[in-house]
């Protein structure tokens, strides 16, 4: 726990640009106070991030759709999401009488917990990685699969047919698309020779992986959209079929938690994409974390662009696409990568790129 506190401590220090030795070393009781301050700071950062994301999404959607988007509350409508959140907090908490109470109540908490955990793994820059794990990618993929569980819990606990159908679809979809995603990442791991996110990011200081592994990048984007259940794979909440899918029966703060979790996941998945394919925090002139956040937001905008362009795919076609097209291609890509690495090693005499 102390180690974890220290890493959080260092992380926020890195963000704020404070010197490595601070008051905490001189005064022990300050340590706890500062830890608290940093925790609150981290959570505020997360919330601001989500608010910015929602604002960007709505304004970008307005731009794509020949309309204005929110522009009344605050400058450029920046405070619109805060306004909406306060409104949602004031809503009644409705729980279906026949709901499975424990499962129903845990589900929204779980989804946010998982999202916050994923934030802790990302290398925002040299020295500001909250938790450095030597199996970072594995942990990231494992934790992100827990989302499936929370969606299924929400679908089952609500005791609603639409929720259940939505939840069931999610399980099938997310579990299936995790396979091509993992396979697309393995290629990168083979090239870099490390599972640590920070190492992968810094290994791309000369050439980004997106140019080395373009096929893997395409597969990653497709399966990330499916993992996030974003259009064209937004089967889980398929409004036009399932009303609101798994969160049909949630209201007020519980719904807000689902919404927050969804956008927090969008950020962390895009950040993973940036780490794997766009060189993480590498970049000239600006501080590394600015590069990291900037790249991530560009990646997010790209995902939103896809979202506002495409229609929702059919469930059976989605599954066929995954098992019959995506997975064979990613396996072939893996084979080519392996052969390519060996050829490169033979040609240059180097151990790895």
């Amino acid at each position: 726990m102390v180690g974890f506190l220290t890493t959080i401590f260092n992380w926020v220090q890195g963000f704020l640009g404070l010197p490595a030795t601070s008051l905490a070393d001189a005064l022990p009781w300050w340590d706890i106070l500062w830890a608290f301050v940093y925790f609150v700071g981290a959570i505020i950062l997360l919330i601001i991030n989500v608010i910015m994301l929602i604002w960007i999404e709505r304004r970008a959607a307005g731009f794509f759709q020949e309309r204005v988007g929110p522009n009344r509350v605050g400058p450029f409508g920046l405070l619109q999401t805060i306004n909406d959140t306060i409104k949602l907090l004031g809503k009644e908490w409705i729980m279906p009488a026949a709901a499975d109470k424990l499962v129903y109540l845990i589900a929204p908490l779980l989804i946010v917990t998982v999202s916050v955990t994923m934030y802790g793994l990302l290398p925002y820059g040299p020295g500001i990685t909250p938790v450095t794990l030597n199996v970072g990618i594995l942990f990231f993929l494992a934790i992100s699969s827990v989302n499936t569980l929370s969606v299924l819990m929400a679908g089952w606990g609500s005791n609603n047919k639409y929720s259940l159908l939505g939840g069931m679809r999610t399980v099938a979809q997310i579990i299936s698309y995790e396979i091509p995603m993992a396979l697309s990442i393995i290629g990168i791991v083979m090239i870099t020779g490390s599972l640590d996110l920070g190492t992968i990011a810094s290994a791309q200081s000369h050439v980004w992986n997106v140019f080395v592994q373009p096929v893997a990048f395409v597969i990653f984007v497709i399966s990330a959209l499916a993992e996030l259940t974003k259009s064209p794979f937004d089967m889980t909440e398929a409004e036009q079929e399932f009303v609101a899918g798994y969160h049909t029966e949630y209201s007020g703060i519980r719904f807000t938690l689902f919404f927050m979790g969804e956008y927090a996941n969008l950020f962390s998945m895009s950040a993973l994409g940036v780490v794997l394919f766009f060189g993480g925090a590498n970049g000239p002139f600006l501080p590394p974390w600015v590069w990291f956040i900037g790249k991530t937001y560009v990646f997010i905008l790209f995902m939103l662009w896809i979202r506002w362009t495409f229609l929702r795919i059919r469930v059976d076609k989605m599954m066929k696409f995954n098992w019959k097209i995506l997975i064979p291609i990613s396996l072939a890509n893996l084979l080519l990568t392996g052969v390519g690495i060996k050829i490169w090693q033979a040609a240059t005499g180097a151990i790895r790129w």
Partner: protein
Amino acid sequence: MGDFITEADGLETQEFILNLGPQHPSTHGVYRARLIMDGEIVVSAENKIGYLHRGIEKIAEGITYAQFTPYTTRFDYVSGAMQPWAWCLALEKLGNTVVPERAEYLRVIVGELQRIASHLVMLGSMVLDFSAITPWTYVFNAREEILDLLEAVSGSRLLVNYFVNGGVNADIPEGWAAKTEAALDGMLKRLDDFERMVSGNEIFLGRTKGIAPVSAAEAIEYGITGASLRASGVDFDMRRDSPYSVYDRFSFAVPVIKGGDSFDRYQLRVLEIRESVKIVRQALKTLPDGEVRAKVAKVWRPAPGEAYAATEAARGIMGYQVVSDGSTKPYRVHMRSPSFCNIGIIPAKAPGLTLQDFISFIASLDFVLGDIDR
């Protein structure tokens, strides 16, 4: 469907009832389908209607002919302007009123503009059912321009009360014809954008091609009319085959597609919009001068008798049977509304579709609940 596990594989499954509606985003109103589902497969479907029933046929018996005219716009509120057309034709038959030529032309222009607006709503709401929000805003913006035109002639945008017994309410404002030409150009440009985004989209084709194909014989048997009928390969359009008003003076094609699936029903609306544009342009060019409203007594008492008139409305054949007993109020009014007849095919075609395909099917039928329940 062979991909799904069935009871034959030794696994017990249970069918359940899913009430799709009356409060559901994709039923376009308060339509309810009582679906028996096996997982995501529809086993059987039943239409449940009546949530919007207002007893309008009975209301008609209690008010005068002129008072009932605005009511007619309330049935198919998506194509409000052309709804009173059949009613007015029936009244004009009853009273032997001769409608001035200019009024006939204005009726054709406003009616076809409303048909365009209505088909745009259909296209937009259909792709919205596949969660394509951006193309939906494109066609709704195109529709806005047409609604502005309708507002300029009638004062209202949705429930356009422009047609009256003996002509139209008022003449068009100055400069309206030029504005209409410009708006049609803008609309066609947006429609092209929309088509580029949707019509060739692999996902859209996957969701609509081959979904619930209705053969020509079935379409006739179930009394389907309008664009859905022509999408099944039946070449019938009242505007050409039993022309009313002045439709026989314009040259336009009646698009017909053979397949009858969801995509064909979508495609046919796109083609019809382009034909309607041709009609409006011809009518604007040859618009004669003169009165826009025949002299009809304020307290109008038609001779006792009956009259039936039908028009090709946006969703199919809209017909009115009016019985007069010689008083100021109709003795009996009955209407044949296209949406009501068109949804009869749903229970026959639904079994075997997945829930997603079912949504695609009912979206392509393009019904309006006000038109079904009355």
